[in-house]
Structure formats: structure tokens, C-alpha cells
């Protein structure tokens, strides 16, 4: 093990009271429950893991085909297939507790009450460090986008979750709105401790040969490098509109991508689709950040947050 030199830059961040050793978090839905990648990745090297969206009851998810690669992107319509909060607590969380990594539970409900119930159940369990409220899934009929695209509904979900938990509450925002800052401000006023963005952009892909959509669900959420410019723009806008920390994501593949998000105003970042092509993406991004800071003689990662010069 290499000794920590005096010049090693500080990567630790504090997001609304949740301390993480670095600002790199794996995004919900792209890293399973952590265990799927444990044999590839040293989970202790990550700042945090956001687990696959959890609902009160297990969810089947959407019928296949669920995914389609498009130029620079991945369309998915998984539809929040998950084991449900009880099985998560019994079977998945004990594994994650063995690691020194922040565990953020992404939660989903079909009603306000359900969001609150899921939040309540997770808050009672040791080993969950924050909640990320999913009001932005484009692939489910109830909940998801119908809450996240409406400032009043998004605020109400936030209030109900806040009332049900003592954990820091992050609200994950959808880009599928006219003005994302309206939603960001609404959830901030309702008590959100942080906002994370962006979730996927609704899109579709067509098979010309059969003249059918590639996805059984017809539409899906687009992620991957194709959406990075949109995500950067939205992170920048939101960072200027709210006082709470912003967690940026959308197409991050490299440390440079991640640092761009931080310059735009994100205090931390999430790495999603990149995990699929390189399970070590998040770990390599942490290393790349460290090198960048060293090279530019920046002592603390916080110094670059929101430094965009326009």
C-alpha cells in the first residue's frame, strides 16, 4: 500500500450530512444491489452505491425486449423490476453492510403513502445511509414520471418521505420536463436535502424491417454518452437555482466527464451506463480525479465545484 503523500488531494465530500470518501457513486439500476459487481470491483473504493429502485412489493418489471443500444446510448424499459423492500433488507443489505461504502436506497411508490411506507421501512434498518426518491422513471404506468413532472406532486412526495424518515433525502429529477429548475425548487422547498439529476430521457427505437418498436414497452429511457450534453446543461441550471447539493449524472464515462459535471455545479456524481461496459468505471474515475487534482495542484475537490466561467 502506497503511503499517503502530503500532496494527495482530498476527495471526501459531505452531501447533506452524508460523508463519503469520494464523490463517485454508482447510479440506481446500473449496479444491481452491489453484489453483482463485487467480484469485479472493490466496493470499498466507491463513494457510494445507489441500489436498484425499491418498491413496497416485489415488481415483475416490463416484458422483454427491454433494452436496445442506439448511437452512443442505451434505451431501457426495465420497469423497476426489483425484489421489494422486505427482501432487500433481508437478503441484499447484509452483504452491502460488509463494505465501507455509503448505501443509498432508491425508492419508488405508486402512491404518496407507498413512498412513505418504503422510506419508513428502510430508515429502520442499519446500513442505509440516505434515500433517493425516484420520481422520474419513464417506464412505469403509475408513480414515476407522473409525480416527477409535476412540481406539486413532486413536492408532496418529498414532504411525505421526509416525514417518514430521519435519513437524508435526495430527490432524483427527470429531464422530461420543460423547465427542470421549477421541479428542483419545488422539492427543495418541500424539504429535499439534495437533488440528483438527470434520470433517463424518454426515447424510442424502431426496427424498420418489421416496422415495430425495438422495445416491447414501445418507449424507453435513454442513457449513456449520448445524453451527457443535456445532463450537463440541466445540472448547471439546477445548481444555480437551488441551495441544496446537486448530484450530477448522465453519460459519465471518464474522470473528465465527471469533473465537467462538478465544474457545472455538482457536488458529487453518479456513474451509470458506463458500469455495463466497464465494471471498473467508477473506480477508474476516482483515480482519474485524483490525478487531475494533483496535476492542477488543487488540494480539495470542493474547490472545483461550480467554477464554470460563463
Amino acid at each position, binding site marked *: 500500500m502506497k503511503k499517503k503523500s502530503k500532496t494527495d488531494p482530498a476527495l471526501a465530500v459531505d452531501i447533506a450530512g452524508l460523508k463519503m470518501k469520494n464523490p463517485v457513486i454508482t447510479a440506481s439500476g446500473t449496479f444491481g444491489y452491489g453484489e453483482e459487481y463485487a467480484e469485479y*470491483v472493490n466496493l470499498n473504493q466507491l463513494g457510494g452505491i445507489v441500489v436498484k429502485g425499491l418498491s413496497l412489493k416485489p415488481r*415483475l418489471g416490463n416484458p422483454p425486449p*427491454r*433494452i436496445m443500444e442506439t448511437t452512443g446510448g442505451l434505451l431501457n424499459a426495465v420497469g423497476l*423490476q426489483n425484489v421489494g423492500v422486505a427482501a432487500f433488507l433481508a437478503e441484499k443489505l447484509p452483504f452491502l453492510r460488509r463494505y465501507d461504502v455509503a448505501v443509498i436506497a432508491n425508492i419508488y411508490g405508486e402512491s404518496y403513502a407507498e413512498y412513505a411506507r418504503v422510506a419508513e421501512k428502510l430508515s429502520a434498518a442499519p446500513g442505509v445511509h440516505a434515500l433517493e426518491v425516484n420520481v422520474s422513471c419513464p417506464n412505469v404506468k403509475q408513480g414515476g414520471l407522473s409525480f416527477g413532472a409535476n412540481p406539486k406532486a413532486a413536492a408532496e412526495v418529498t414532504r411525505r418521505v421526509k416525514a417518514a424518515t430521519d435519513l437524508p433525502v435526495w430527490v432524483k429529477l427527470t429531464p422530461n420536463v420543460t423547465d427542470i429548475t421549477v421541479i428542483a425548487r419545488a422539492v427543495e422547498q418541500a424539504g429535499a436535502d439534495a437533488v440528483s439529476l438527470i434520470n433517463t430521457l424518454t426515447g424510442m427505437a424502431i426496427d424498420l424491417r418489421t416496422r415495430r418498436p425495438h422495445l416491447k414497452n414501445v418507449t424507453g429511457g435513454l442513457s449513456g454518452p449520448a445524453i451527457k450534453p443535456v445532463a450537463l446543461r440541466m445540472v448547471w441550471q439546477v445548481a444555480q437555482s437551488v441551495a441544496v447539493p446537486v448530484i450530477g449524472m448522465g453519460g459519465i464515462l471518464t474522470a473528465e466527464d465527471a469533473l465537467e459535471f462538478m465544474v457545472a455545479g455538482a457536488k458529487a456524481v453518479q456513474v451509470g451506463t458506463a458500469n*455495463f461496459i466497464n465494471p471498473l468505471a467508477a473506480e477508474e474515475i476516482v483515480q482519474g480525479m485524483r490525478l487531475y487534482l494533483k496535476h492542477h495542484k488543487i488540494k480539495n475537490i470542493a474547490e472545483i465545484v461550480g467554477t464554470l466561467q460563463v
Partner: protein
Amino acid sequence: MTEKAMARNIYLGEVSRNEEVRPDFFLMKIRLPAQFERPLPGQFVMVRVAGLQDPFLSRPLSIYACKQGPRFCTIELLYRVAGKGTRILAGLIPGSQVELSGPLGTGYRVDRTKKNIVLIAGGIGIAPLSLLVRELRRRSCRAADAMTVYLGARTETALVGLDALRQSCSRIIVCTDDGTLGEKAPVTKAFQRDLPKYNPADTALYACGPKPMIRSLAGLLNDQYFCQVSLEERMACGVGACAGCVVAVKDASGNKAYRRVCADGPVFELKDILWE
């Protein structure tokens, strides 16, 4: 040594051979570090061109052969060009580097108690079954005439892997849709004709092929048969994290559930699959 090289199951491989063995069918040999785990027949690898960003997802390809040496391991992938990703793989020249993870997924479970071994392959489905045939020969000392392979394809030029298969199996029934070689019939038709010879108690069936083939097989066999099938789906992660590649199955309590082809499969019991 880079971090990447230290991670388990992720390798940088070097293409040592990549040639078109039949129109649109390629055989790629990849040289990997010796620690590449011995694959089970039916397992697959996720492979992508090192550093390439479009397409950026890896492609799942089943393992056709594997030779392990003291210094390195060579795997062979027999694949069909089906789209942009596989077309780019087909263009790789010897010396090209690929990022590869594996072996992934479940393999076929060999039931040694069964007297008859029957394999049914459609098109490129021959790839994992060829590895199975060789493993059966090697590990359970099955004679070349103790197994029967039903092999089907669109046309003669799409009958890939047949010559190599003849070296380890002497009972091969060939079918083509257009009758250019063997019987002019779907492979499942030829199998159906012989089905009365195979009673469930002493027959193990292994299949891999396009979904319509697997589906018609499901229509032929009752639940008493031991039949394992390997499925193909579009995949993103290959390790069970994204839930993108699911198939509908009956779970232990008889309810519908979606299982991940990459991590819970690609080999499934045929009787568990739900056809919707």
C-alpha cells in the same frame, strides 16, 4: 500492472485469428491470460473492441472452444454477424485488442444417468452445443455414436460448425429450410419423427437455437423430459445488474417471473419457460 488487469474476470485479449468460415459466420480466436477460468459448455463472454465508444456495449457470444495452456488460454468464438456490433467484431484483424469478461452465466448440466444424449441446434446455436459435445466425449467418455445431434439451418452455407462436429459425433441429422443439404424440413420436424425412440426416463436433451425453434420444441416435449436450452437475448451488462435481458419463466411456486438470461441463464430448463 493496470487496475483493469488485476480485476477478476475482466481481460484484455488479443485476436489471433478471425475469419469468415461461411458467409456472415466468423470464427474468432482470442488469446487470454492463463487465469481465464475453464468455461462450462453454455457459458458465454462479453466482448467489445478495446476503447471503442460506438457501439459501446459489449456483445454476448457463447464459447465455442477453449484451450488452456501454461502461459495463456485461447478461446474460440463462432458467431454470426447480426448487426453493427458483430460486424465491427468481424472486421478485427489478428493483433487487435478486445476487452472481454467471462466466462459468464450458467452452463448446461450434464445428467450422467441418461443413456441417450440428444442435441438440437439451430443455426449459430451450434456454437455452445459443439463445446458440450466435446466435453461429453472427454468427461463422461461418451462414444462418438452415443450422442445424436439434430442440426438445422436456413441453407447449406449457413450450416456452420458441421465439419468440426463430425470429428466428435457420428450421428448427425442435418436439416435445411431449402433442402440444399440434408432433409428439407425444420430441425424440430426431424426430431419429432424420432421422438418416440427417446423415452423421458433415459434421455437428456440439450438445445440452442432461435426462439421459434425452442418454442416448437417446447410444444413437442412434455414436462417429463429433461431438456435444457440456451437462450439468446440482447444484453447490456452481462452480469445480472441491469435486468435488461430477461425471459419469462414459471418460478418455484408456479408464478410468472422474469429471469435474467445473463446471470440466471443462459441455460434454462425448457419446462420452466413461459411462452406468451
